[in-house]
């Protein structure tokens, strides 16, 4: 009996060792411990065994069966490992081939900066106001305290549609339109398009973009203006960038100032971009002239305000290192893709 079992086990061992696939293994399993296996038929013979030996007989067969099951299990593991190794080896890929990019376009760099400007001011509690591109002389000049004979009213500088209708030369028109319609407190920015009769070149365009800020309330001071400018400049260009204002003249503000920021390229030590001055001109600012407030019916004793205007195209060129303004309006896809 024991010999017979040993025989079965030896045979099964050698059979299993040569198996390398799952289906073969299944077949072998049924041959070795299945219903029609030699082992099973041995078990059926138990009734021929003497009653006092039956217990031992059964035990031996079960031990053999357990051992065979273990053999099959370990073979299963070996085959699984073989399959896995094969799978990994055959699926090797060239990791240097390019990845699949999502199909995405991009916003124009001007729009990206435009949004950044809007978001910066929105976070400071400003509202965004809209204006007209085609304006009348009143809103573009008269209400902004610009004398009738002021040179900026010349045909050489301003596009006219009719005698008193023109393309706005500055977003300051929105100051007037807002104050005509709303009482202080007023806290707005007005980004938009402006037009001046300039030939297109590296730093000029007949169509350009500005953002105007206007704050009118009680107790608004020059110090508030400086604060807002500082926060804006540092948000846009970084904490290291300083801003300064120096005296200037605009008809609609008094005192008036021009805004400079420390050169974003050299940090102030002087370079080609800042023409070695260390400073870059960003726009104009000032306290709203009492005459402007009165022209829209706001009590200039009770209320004061500040306003400033900055060039969005200029900010974009500085932030994105774009050397020539014309590139912005050529819309070459190779340029647009750089900034997506």
């Amino acid at each position, binding site marked *: 009996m024991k010999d017979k079992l040993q025989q079965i086990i030896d045979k099964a061992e050698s059979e299993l060792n040569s198996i390398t696939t799952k289906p073969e293994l299944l077949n072998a399993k049924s041959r070795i411990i299945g219903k029609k296996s030699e082992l099973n038929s041995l078990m059926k013979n138990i009734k021929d065994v003497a009653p006092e030996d039956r217990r031992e007989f059964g035990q031996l067969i079960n031990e053999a069966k357990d051992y065979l099951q273990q053999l099959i299990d370990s073979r299963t593991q070996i085959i699984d490992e073989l399959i896995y190794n094969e799978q990994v080896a055959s699926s090797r890929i060239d990791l240097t081939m390019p990845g699949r990019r999502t199909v995405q376009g991009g916003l124009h760099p001007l729009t990206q900066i435009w949004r950044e400007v809007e978001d910066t001011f929105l976070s400071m509690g400003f509202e965004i106001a809209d204006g007209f591109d085609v304006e009348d002389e009143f809103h573009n000049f008269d209400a902004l305290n610009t004398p009738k004979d002021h040179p900026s009213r010349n045909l050489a500088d301003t596009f006219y549609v*009719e005698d008193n209708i023109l393309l706005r030369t500055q977003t300051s028109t929105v100051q007037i339109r807002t104050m005509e319609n709303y009482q202080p407190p007023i806290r707005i920015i007005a980004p938009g398009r402006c037009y001046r009769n300039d030939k297109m070149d590296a730093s000029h365009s007949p169509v350009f973009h500005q953002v105007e800020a206007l704050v009118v309330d009680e107790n608004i001071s020059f110090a508030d203006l400086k604060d807002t400018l500082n926060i804006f400049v540092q948000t846009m260009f970084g904490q290291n960038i300083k801003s300064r204002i120096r005296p200037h003249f605009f008809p609609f503000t008094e005192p008036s100032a021009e805004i400079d920021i420390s050169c974003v390229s050299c940090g102030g030590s002087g370079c080609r971009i800042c023409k070695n001055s260390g400073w870059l001109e960003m726009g104009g600012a000032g306290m709203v002239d009492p005459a402007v407030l009165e022209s829209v019916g706001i009590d200039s004793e009770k209320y004061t305000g500040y306003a400033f205007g900055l060039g969005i195209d200029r900010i974009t060129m500085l932030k994105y290192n774009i050397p020539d303004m014309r590139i912005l309006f050529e819309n070459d896809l190779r340029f*647009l893709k750089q900034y997506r």
Partner: protein
Amino acid sequence: MKISYKWLKDYVNLDVDPKILEDHLTFAGIEVEAIEHIGEDLKQFIVAEVLSAQKIEGSDHLQVCMVNDGGEEPVQVVCGAPNCRTGLKVAFAPVGSIIGGEFKIKKAKLKGYASHGMICSAKELGISEDHDGIMELDTKASIGQDLASYLDFNDIVYDVEITPNRPDLLGIIGVARDLSALYHKELHLPQAKEWNTYDDVNDSLKLEIQNQDKCSRYLATVIKNVEVKESPDWLKKRLIAVELRPINNIVDITNFILMETGHPIHAFDYDKLAGKKIIVRDAFENESFPALNGEVYKLSQDDLVIADGDKAIGLAGVMGGANSEITLNTQNIVIESACFNYATVRRTSQRHKLFSDSSYRFERGLSSETPVFTKDRAIDLILDLAGGQLQQGSLDVYPNPDLAKIEVELRPARVELLLGAHIPLVEIKSYLKALGLELITESSEKIKYKIPHFRGDLLREIDLIEEIVRLHGYNNIPVKTSPQGIMNHKHFRLERKIKDLMVTAGLYEVINLTLFDPDNLNKLRLSEDDFRRRLVELKNPQSNVLRAMRTTLITNLLNCTEYNINRGNKDVRIFELNKIILNNSDKTTEERKSLTALLSGNRFDNYWKDKSTKCDFYDVKGIVEDLFTEVNLTISYTPSQEKFYTENHSLDIICKKLKIGSFGQIDPKIAKSFNIDTVELKQDVYILDIDLTQILEIMDFSKRDFQEINKFPNVYRDISFNVNSDIKVSDIISTIEVVNKAVVKNVSLMDEYKGKNIPKGKRSLMFSLTLNSENKTLTDKFTEQLMQKVIQSLEKNYNIEMR
């Protein structure tokens, strides 16, 4: 906490409607979570008279009674109460009434006798603990009256949320004090009466506090020869209103004082105190304490107990002991008015999971001064309602009385600075005075106040300012006007959203000058009366090509395309969202926002795994579909009237009967006039042009419907067939949908095939149907039948051949 409207009126003369008071409480910082109308359920019960009561044979207690409830006929009721007798006025629950909120009275039969209702005991009605028999009403009670009005049970109870910083509001007086400040009305506090006293209390009792950190004050008063009995109606009503069950006069008085002052007191049976002494001490480890609730607790050394000469008789601030409980046999009592450390009470309460009205209050931190008031109040009420002899004096151990004295300075200018509103000084002083603050010194800059002992939360100037604005009313602080309403948020958001959508669709934004050459309009074959001919022209143009404001973005995009193709960028997918400016007949100008997109060349940048494909009509159509899903507008299409598109390759977009845009293939001849040779390039040019201003006018930003997510799984079925090429897919889809609109949730085109194996003039189409029913899982049988109906309908309408 529950606050009774009637009870409040004992202390402050309220003349506001209870409903309005709810608002006022909430806006004074006492948030009302629910309102309950007391007596509402007693309205179902009726005053009735027992006309006859006869013992039922074979039952030792049941009687069959005839009852007059004021109705036309007497009602027969079986009653088990021994005190039920002829002539008695009783509380009758008719059939259909509900007792205790859940037990509904039904017609019943007992021992063969029909019973139409129930005669109730006071306990069954939730009025008292008295369960000895049915409630005996006054002989003069009028039959048929509802019980609520007979008992005068009508009160409004507010269930309020008290914030943790205001333990003083955990009693009715505290709330009344706030209301008195709010309404500038006087607060009427009960005044202590003069009573005769008997022997010195020191002869009866000894008091010792061993742990003064955990017990800041203990006042013990002894009253002898009290009569423990049921409380009078007014007292029971007060307790019932705030959901406390009346027990006996002494216990009811302690509960009443707890609710009234927010400061718990306790009464011990004097005769059960071993050694006639009270010791406040730490519990022994594993000391066992039988509490009033019937449980026995194993204490820890961290617990504080009230003990007599040999055992714990109370768990300090949490619960009294069963071994010293007041019973109907009690003759002499000790009243405890004390203050325990909030942390000790909280830890004990948590440790033993034992929460009581008392622990709830002590663990919020109570004043050591209040016990004097609660003691006086207890003496008054007990002598009044239970009689007895007050022993002279009280035992009072109060080690650190100075801790309760706090002074705070207020700068009126600071109030204005912080609140942004001017509140007159008289008003400020009136509020603080009403809250119990005592003005000590006053100068023009600052006022110094002594804080009342029950307001331990007022420690700093800012705490006083909060009280001032709370009573002044947050709503009465003017809104500081800030700039608003100027910005058009709707336009702002939509523009950003749409630009982002175009970018996601793979398009690059371009920005062109607003000035253009209007000769380009001729190239677009615009008719003379086309709106885009309404030019705003410059008087002094810089050049001919920049002489008018553009009235369309299409010419700019075509120019951009030419520019890019000339520079080798053949795959052009671009859009612009910008103004167009039109001349009105009255010489004014109109500025509108336009969205224009252009697709030409490869759909994607070439990728090594994919075959490159060219943009076509359906790419543009897909963008249109995305766009209008995004703005939540339903659109339809009609063949385009625009002349610059190739015939049959373009659609106008219609929404709410308005044309709001168009899209399609640019006529190759027109493309060529813009120097784009589509034949040579082997790529067509597709344009999408939408009037954004119009979308803004018609779209509804506020609405977005929620659709229930179906809990039954979708079933998918595909169907494919040959059909004449001139049959439109949109018609086929709607034909399929009408077969069963409730179940066919979606029909999508999966494939179109023409050519090999398909007869000429026909095409093969494959559709996928998504089926679902909101209320059941669809069976295979149902699905099969549905698909058969779909096929039949398509065969009938379009003569399809199934594949």
